[in-house]
């Protein structure tokens, strides 16, 4: 087996563990937020038929964290969803490092392009 394919295999195992951990962590946080949210708002009437946009404090990373620390159920759920969205981003970041260790600079570049698009979507494209 060549050194490259052995390394690829090992990278994939680590990536697999990273993804599983990220998803489970996110699901746990969402579940916790769900309990808080349903305990407080369970008897209200839901309305998603007409779009009204989520309030500002549920749209950006910093205000979501702030709200979650204040034990707002919806903000805790949103924090879990943010963790979930961050999981594939972490995977891409890890791949870039792994390709750099393999000295595969063409793939470091390709991976950084993907990372740039993801970061633009998460942080750049607000409003």
């Amino acid at each position, binding site marked *: 087996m060549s050194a490259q394919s052995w390394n690829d295999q090992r990278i994939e195992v680590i990536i697999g563990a990273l993804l599983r951990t990220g998803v489970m962590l996110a699901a746990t946080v969402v579940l916790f937020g769900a309990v808080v*949210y349903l305990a407080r708002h369970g008897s209200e009437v839901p309305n998603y038929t007409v779009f009204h946009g*989520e309030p500002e404090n549920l749209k950006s990373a910093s205000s979501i964290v702030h709200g979650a620390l204040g034990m707002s159920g919806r903000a805790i759920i949103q924090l879990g969803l943010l963790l979930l969205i961050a999981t594939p981003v972490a995977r891409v970041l890890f791949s870039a490092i792994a390709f750099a260790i393999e000295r595969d600079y063409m793939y470091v570049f390709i991976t950084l392009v993907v990372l740039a698009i993801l970061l633009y979507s998460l942080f750049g494209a607000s409003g």
Partner: protein
Amino acid sequence: MNVLEFSAMIGLGSLLAGFLGALTGLGGGVVVVPMLALLFHVDIRYAIGASLVSVIATSSGAAAAYVREGYSNIRIGMFLETATTAGALAGAAIALYVVSSNVIAIVFGVVLLYSAYLSSHHRVEHGAHLPSSKLAARLRLSGSYPGPDGKLSYNVTGVPAGYGLMFVAGVLSGLLGIGSGAVKVLAMDQAMKIPFKVSTTTSNFMIGVTAAASAGLYLHRGYIAPGLAMPVMLGVLAGSLIGARVLVKARVKVLRYLFAAVIVVLGFEMVYKGMTGRI
């Protein structure tokens, strides 16, 4: 119906969607949006936001199992992700700034019908010993995977066509909040001649990254509603995990036809509702 009942019903529906999606290999995402829009009368963009989140969850959950087996090809995946993520941004921008809910519904319906058609169609495995194209060789896309008697190696061709199809898959993912696994596998099977086991697992691997690219945009625009996304995400994730466990023992063929029939009905309904402006 209060929030508690609403969450419970959507959670159950999503559980079923995730379960059937995993069992049939079609993914739960394709039925989540029609379910929310048609059954629960949720605004389609809210439905797409919630669906995107569940797509990330199932993709990452399933990929963790696949990568251990050594079928997926991280180079092919990463290279094609430059196309799918760019497409996903474009698709999300179109959904959020350009087209109306009715147009989204019609496109969604057509994609559903196409997915059902694909799933009833037998895929043809290509000869494993094609030579690599020049571009594929330069990108070092060929690889190998574990077969019954040792490693099977494969080459890759048709890179520009595959790349183009991947961009389309990304646009559909961002526009509709689905994984577009069907188009991704098509690009890798038909255009690039990659073996099934590799194309299926690599596609699954890519879906999460693609969905994350558009999810950011939906979040900023306020289309990811925690109260709605919560039961969808938890339901689909639990359903798909159970589905993956049952997969080995179940007789999938009958279920597959049944699920395809459900998708056809939903597809026609989405097109009809979109055309009559009732979505």
